[in-house]
């Protein structure tokens, strides 16, 4: 298949700061590989685990669409716009950094770790007004189907961002086959396996593997085991 990239879980960068263990699909902070910069507008896909009571102190962001998806545990967010929020598994948080924002992100629990996906997308507009949002989604709505949790449209399902991107989650039973239909046929698709094992267009993926490609309008997915996956649809250029 043309223009495809396979990122096995073990090939990710691994950063261990004691309180934070981070598996990074793309170049991030001190880790740099010219072959691992981005997939279209998808620039960061970090799989972070933060120890109890620890977190990211006050730090800035600008001109980036930043999405957090907790997988286990609870995150507490505070930002310079006055937002104080807690997010749990089954929720998604989005921050348009735009002209500049400061925030902290801490594990709400003093003892148990929190694991979450930290995803950054390039915005399709520079210097927008910063904004924060979060949303809860029903876990039953993704059993053997793709549940939209993010789009570019404020009136569509899930949270919205300044980019022509869509995120979907799916929990698939072993043996279940599903088709993902692109929202925009020029977009690429990056599939990240949260748990289990799947086959996507003939490519077998295990837990925490990532696979990006510019597909046909429909993407065939087969669960080789009970699986959870995140499908990130992004433009190559914007």
């Amino acid at each position: 298949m043309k223009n495809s990239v396979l990122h096995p879980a073990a090939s990710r960068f691994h950063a261990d700061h004691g309180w934070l263990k981070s598996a990074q699909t793309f170049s991030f902070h001190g880790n740099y590989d010219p072959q691992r910069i981005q997939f279209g507008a998808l620039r960061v896909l970090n799989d972070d685990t933060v120890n109890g009571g620890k977190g990211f102190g006050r730090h800035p962001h600008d001109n980036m669409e930043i999405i957090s998806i907790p997988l286990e545990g609870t995150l507490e967010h505070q930002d310079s716009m006055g937002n104080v929020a807690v997010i749990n598994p089954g929720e998604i948080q989005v921050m348009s950094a735009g002209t500049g924002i400061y925030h902290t992100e801490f594990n709400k629990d003093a003892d148990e770790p929190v694991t979450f996906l930290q995803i950054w997308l390039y915005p399709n507009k520079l210097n927008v007004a910063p904004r924060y949002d979060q949303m809860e989604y029903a876990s039953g709505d993704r059993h053997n189907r793709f549940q939209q949790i993010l789009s570019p449209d404020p009136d569509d399902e899930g949270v919205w961002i300044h980019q022509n991107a869509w995120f979907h989650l799916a929990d698939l039973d072993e043996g279940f086959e599903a088709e993902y239909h692109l929202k925009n046929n020029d977009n690429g698709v990056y599939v990240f396996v949260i748990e289990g094992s799947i086959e996507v267009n003939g490519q077998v993926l295990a837990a925490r593997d990532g696979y990006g490609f510019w597909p046909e309008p429909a993407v065939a997915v087969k669960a080789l085991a009970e699986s959870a996956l995140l499908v990130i649809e992004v433009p190559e250029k914007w």
Partner: protein
Amino acid sequence: MPIAGVMLQLMSKVNILAIANHPEILETIVRLINQQDAWNGIPAGSIAEAEEALRLNSIDLVLLGVGVDEETGERIVSLCQSIDPRIACLRHFGGGSGLLYSEIRHALAGG
């Protein structure tokens, strides 16, 4: 260190001009740049400051940060080209350490 030694040390560093209109973010970016021994961060909080810095310093790399719109970015790129076509200009995203180092390394590698 003798003045000549300081000059030699500065000359051997990569001079990176960071332009952003958000003072705290600009300070953060320059501080992060200067944490790297081989790099020297030069702040510019406005386009006028950036133009002056480009004329007074031997700049290797320009980071177009927050507040620099497309039109202004193109103006800076044109100015850099007129001063020295080897000056690389790139858009900095993120406002912190997450992408900064790989953006700079990628640009210095000709990416």
